[in-house]
């Protein structure tokens, strides 16, 4: 950070128009990593995603003098990125599939927790109850900070998700975008978005559980 902890759109736009480097510094600190992550929803190669994010910044700078504030600055920046990433992704034959067909192929409707962890429906005492309930995770104070290993584990779990689940969990839980905005970008209903989010979170939880189990048995 360069001494600018928070700036509103007005200050940022003025700063950029006046060619203040500290303003640009503030912007890239805040958004560049997000731009790369979102580009990677369309493009598998990190170097290409990085290039697209750079290209986005160039377009932001070139466009700032004409920026009409019809949307927030953030929305405008991410729209530029989306367009660049989408066309590049198409070029690579990659796009995020959100068709109904893809849902079905994606195991939509299958349970998010393996059925063998529950008693069968005809169990005399606990039909549908946990037979292998989750063990509490030991959140010692040092666990509050994300260890590199656990971070890698979560990152890998997200990378392994089907593309549409990966897109939703990245935008919703990682970038903190509001659901309505995500639905808008992908032309998705709130219900379908929640289904994807639900499946994605369950898979990531599962990965964390396996991680904790492996470290405990060490």
């Amino acid at each position: 950070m360069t001494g600018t902890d928070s700036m509103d759109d007005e200050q940022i736009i003025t700063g950029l128009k006046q060619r203040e480097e500290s303003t640009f510094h503030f912007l890239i600190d805040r958004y560049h990593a997000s731009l790369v992550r979102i580009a990677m929803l369309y493009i598998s190669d990190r170097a290409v995603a990085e290039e697209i994010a750079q290209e986005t910044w160039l377009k932001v700078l070139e466009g700032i003098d004409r920026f009409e504030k019809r949307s927030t600055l953030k929305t405008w920046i991410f729209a530029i990125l989306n367009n660049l990433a989408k066309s590049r992704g198409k070029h690579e034959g990659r796009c995020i599939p959100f068709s109904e067909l893809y849902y079905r192929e994606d195991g939509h409707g299958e349970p998010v927790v393996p059925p063998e962890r529950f008693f069968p429906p005809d169990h005399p005492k606990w039909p549908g109850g946990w037979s292998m309930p989750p063990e509490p995770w030991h959140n010692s104070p040092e666990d509050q900070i994300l260890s590199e290993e656990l971070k890698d584990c979560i990152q890998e779990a997200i990378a392994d998700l089907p593309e549409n689940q990966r897109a939703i969990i990245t935008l919703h839980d990682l970038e903190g975008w509001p659901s309505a905005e995500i639905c808008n970008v992908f032309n998705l209903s709130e219900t379908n978005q929640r289904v994807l989010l639900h499946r994605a979170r369950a898979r990531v939880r599962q990965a964390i559980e396996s991680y904790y189990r492996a470290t405990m048995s060490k």
Partner: protein
Amino acid sequence: MNLQPITCKEFVELVTDYLEGSLSPEDQARFEAHLAVCDGCEIYLKQIGETIRLTGKLSEEQLPPEAKDKLLKIFRDWK
């Protein structure tokens, strides 16, 4: 209100709808009634919350200096 209880197997499928506040009032009551009496599901719900928190932490990644230098060069060339 006479609510049909839910099983653990059903509970885990409702977690996201619950957290996003999109369950019907009846389903929410069933969900919470189950939560009050089931340790396994309480742990599961907590862990999904923890999963969301940890996933959010990934966004705190710092910008590597090489990337920053490259971007500042873009800025200086444009300026």
